[in-house]
Structure formats: structure tokens, C-alpha cells
């Protein structure tokens, strides 16, 4: 590359790069500023008089810890159950012959096309009739049901040689044993990529918990923050502290497992 082009490319990358993270830095910076400082605009990225007041208020005067606890419960159950249920189904679709397999698999694929707007009303009315509103179970089911997870795992399991499974059968391994001891360990790369995608989805999901919760004590973090920013309209420091609280877990997971992340997204692209 000619030198001039190279410089130009780096300038573009730097501009895009800074724009990508600046809003987050601004959010963190604001969260450490006192309310009276925020009455006037100032460009300090690093506050001159940093204060923890917003974080103290957040933990003592709002329901943040409860929302955080709910988010952790819902997210961990969603990840665990989704991986377990969907890998079971994926195994049968990939490695077993049964009546109606192809039809059922096409139905699974078709569910990926359903837009959320079609679902919100009937799901709410149905869940209300099943008494699932304001329950953890109601918050968890939407995260488990995933044609995408079944599809992704099945594609990966197709690459496992059948001889391995046959050999295990001859050695007297039970049906569940084959799945649990042979297939699952071999699927680790796909399972970890999927686990991280589910974590981000479940931690951030907003519309479902918004419509499926009416009580403050069962709300998850995103819903809590959304309601809260409508009530404390002028407490920007406090709102930014809450947003940082929601943001950091995803950032940490992303930094720790970047590789799986990018692989997971690239796997998504393969279905196109």
C-alpha cells in the first residue's frame, strides 16, 4: 500500500474506533460526577471532583440489587436450560432416525423467521392465562425456545463421525450416555460460542421482561433501568451509574471470550 493510503486508512480506523467507545467513556465519566456539577455542561472526561454518590444512591435508594439478582437468576437458568434442551434436540435431529424428523426440523427452522411483533400480544395473553406473568419461569421460557440454537448445534453435530457413536453402542453405552459422554464433549466449541451469544441476548433482553412483569420486585435490570430513567429524569449521574452497572458484565464477558464471540457470529452468517 502506498504510504498516503495507509495513513488515510489508519485515520479512518481511529475515527471509527474512538466513536465506537466514546459514548461508553462518557457514560462512565458522568456516573462519577455530582448532581450539581451536571447542571452545567463541562467537557471533563475525568471528573475533577469524582464522587461515588451516584453508586451509593443506586444501591441504597433504588431496587437495583433486586433487579440485578433477578437478571442473574434468569440469565443463568436460560443459558443452562437452553444449552441442555437444545443440544438434546439437536442430537436427535443430527444422529437419529425417527418418524417426522424432516417435517419437525423444517418447523424448527421456520420458527426463526417469526418476527417478535407478531408474538408479543399472543404470548402475553397466553402467559397471562397460564399464570406465567411475574414468574421466573415466564421470563426464562422465551430464552430457551430457539430454532437457531437447535440448528447451530445440529450442524456442528453432523460433523461428528457415526463410527464413534456406533462404537459406544457396541461397548454397551446407554442412549443418554452416548449423548452425554461422547457427543457433548465433542461439541464444546459450538456450545461455548452459543453460551456466550445466549448470555448477551438474555442479559440484555428488554421487550419480554417489559411485558411479562408488572411488579417491581420481579423486574430484570434492563426493565428496571428503563422504568427508573423515566422517574428520575434529571438525575443523569444516577442513570449513567445504572447503565454502567448493566454494561460491565457484557463487556467483561466479551473481553474474556472474544474469540468464541466472533466465531459464534460467523457461524450465524453461514446459514445465509
Amino acid at each position: 500500500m502506498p504510504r498516503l493510503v495507509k495513513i488515510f486508512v489508519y485515520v479512518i480506523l481511529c475515527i471509527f474506533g474512538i466513536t465506537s467507545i466514546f459514548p461508553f467513556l462518557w457514560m462512565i465519566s458522568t456516573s462519577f460526577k455530582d448532581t450539581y456539577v451536571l447542571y452545567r455542561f463541562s467537557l471533563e472526561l475525568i471528573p475533577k471532583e469524582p464522587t461515588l454518590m451516584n453508586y451509593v444512591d443506586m444501591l441504597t435508594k433504588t431496587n437495583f440489587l433486586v433487579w440485578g439478582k433477578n437478571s442473574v437468576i434468569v440469565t443463568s437458568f436460560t443459558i443452562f436450560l437452553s444449552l441442555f434442551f437444545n443440544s438434546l434436540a439437536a442430537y436427535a435431529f443430527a444422529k437419529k432416525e425417527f418418524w417426522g424428523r424432516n417435517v419437525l426440523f423444517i418447523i424448527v427452522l421456520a420458527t426463526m423467521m417469526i418476527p417478535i411483533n407478531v408474538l408479543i400480544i399472543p404470548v402475553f395473553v397466553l402467559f397471562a392465562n397460564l399464570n406465567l406473568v411475574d414468574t421466573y419461569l415466564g421470563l426464562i421460557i422465551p430464552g430457551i425456545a430457539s430454532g437457531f440454537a437447535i440448528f447451530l448445534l445440529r450442524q456442528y453435530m453432523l460433523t461428528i463421525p457415526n463410527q464413534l457413536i456406533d462404537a459406544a453402542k457396541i461397548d454397551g453405552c446407554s442412549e443418554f450416555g452416548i449423548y452425554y459422554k461422547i457427543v457433548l464433549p465433542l461439541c464444546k466449541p459450538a456450545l461455548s460460542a452459543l453460551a456466550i451469544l445466549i448470555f448477551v441476548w438474555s442479559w440484555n433482553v428488554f421487550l419480554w421482561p417489559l411485558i411479562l412483569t408488572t411488579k417491581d420486585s420481579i423486574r430484570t435490570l434492563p426493565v428496571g433501568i428503563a422504568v427508573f430513567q423515566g422517574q428520575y429524569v434529571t438525575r443523569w449521574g444516577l442513570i449513567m451509574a445504572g447503565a454502567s452497572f448493566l454494561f460491565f458484565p457484557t463487556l467483561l464477558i466479551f473481553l474474556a471470550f472474544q474469540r468464541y464471540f466472533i466465531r459464534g457470529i460467523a457461524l450465524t452468517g453461514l446459514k445465509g
Partner: protein
Amino acid sequence: MKSANLTKRIRNNVISYLFILPGMLSITIFLIVPIFYGLFLSFHSAPLYTSPTFSGLKNYIEVLRSDYFWISAKNTIIYSAIFIPSVVVSSLLIAIILNTKIRLRNLFRSLFFIPFISSVIVISVVWKWMYHYDLGIVNYLLGLIHIPPQVWLGDPRLALSAIAVMTIWRSMGFYMILYLAGLQSIPSQLYEAATVDGASHWHTFYHITLPLLRPTSVFVFIIATISSFQMFEEVYIMTFGGPANSTSTLGWLTYDVGFLQLRMGRASTIGFILFLFLFIMSLVELRVFKIKGEY
């Protein structure tokens, strides 16, 4: 012998069904039953907590005759017309840059991806703060180049575009990863051959890169269409559909009619009209890319 074979097959089937049962059950409860129930509701008058009464096509006729629906449909189309092309062009540009041998490639890739992993709620709240009339950094920075301050989210002419700028910023990293995967699947021999033949950069891009990226582009366009047609959370946090319905999208409309006005039948109808709309759009996109491919 034959009956032993049959029992074995039955046993195998039963075991297979047990394997798929939990996954299929959640899909059934959450995706399949609601679709049919939604279709049922769309032909009924169904205020919340009363039993639905059949009303034929009344919901469809009333939705199609209401101004609120057409304003929302118009806003959704305007928003998509800003969002889709911008996000495709910018993510392709960055992907092409990152696909060359430059230093700090992985660092840049991660930086661009961070907005996408964070919650839409976080992003909407932060941008709402940045768009603030007299305390926001956007007006401050524009002031430096002598552009007068704007009420970004309170001005009917600006609010929808202000939201679009934010969502483009957020989604770029995601589509960039898809394009990067597409670019890496193009065999490098093709580029080598082009260089030997003395093709210019522009020529290789237009005659090799773009055509070979077509499968990725189809996927990107369809995903971008689906996501832009459902845009809702940003509106909920930043404008609540206002000012003067200027940011009311079809996603917002469904929520408003269903959960603020509590008319479940009517809201289901809007959902299905949106579904139909999206379906047609996806078919059109598939068609357009197919025609382009025939030469």
C-alpha cells in the same frame, strides 16, 4: 424376527422423541401456539381480561383506515431507508479495510464490536444524554463548528434520524463481522490472478469482491430489514413515540395499541400486517439479488 425389528424401531422412535421433547415443548409454547393464537385474536375484538368476541375482518379494516397506522408505516419505511444502506456501506467499508494486512487489526475489530454487545437500553440512555439540549455533548461539539444547538429528540423533523444515527453506530460492528467472514471465504488466487492481469483496485473490487460477496449481502440485507422493521426499544427509551408521532414505528405501534390501549385483537392485527410486509420485502430482496447475479 419382523416384530422384534418393529419393537426396536418403535423403541428408537420413542427415545428420539424424548430427546427432542424439552426443546420442542419450549418452541411450541413460546413460538408455535402464539402464532396461531395471534391469528385467532386478529379476527376478534379482545380487550384485555375479557373473553374475545368474533369480529371478522373489522380489525384489519380499522387498522388500514387509521392514520396512526399509516404514519407508523411511513416512519418505519423512512427509518429503514436510512438505516439499511448506511449500515451496509459502512460495515462493508470497515470489513474491507480490516481484511488487509494492517497492524492492530484485532484491536480495531473488537472496538467496533463493543456497541453491539451492549444492551440497547444502555445505549439509548447514553445517547439520550448526549443528545440533551443544553447539557449534551452533541450540541457542544456542533457548537465548536458554529452549528446552532438542536432539540434532537424533541423536534419532529429530527427525532427519527437522530435515532437512526445511533442504531447505525450500534449495528455496524455486527454486520462488519458478517462481511469479514464473507471476505475471508474468497479464494486469494482470484486476487493474485487479477493482479497478474493488471486489474486496478476498483476493478478487482467491482468484478471479484462484490459478486463473490453476494450470499453474504443477501443475508445482511434480510437481517438488516428484519431488525429495522422491528425497532422498538430505542423509541421506548428516547421518545415514547413522540414528538407528534414522528418516531412511532410499527414496532412501537404494536406495543402502544396492545399494552397502553389494551386492545389485544387490534394489536395482533398490526403484528400480522407487519409480518406480511416483512415477508414480501424479504422475497423482493432475494429476487433483486438473483437478477443481479445473471450476467
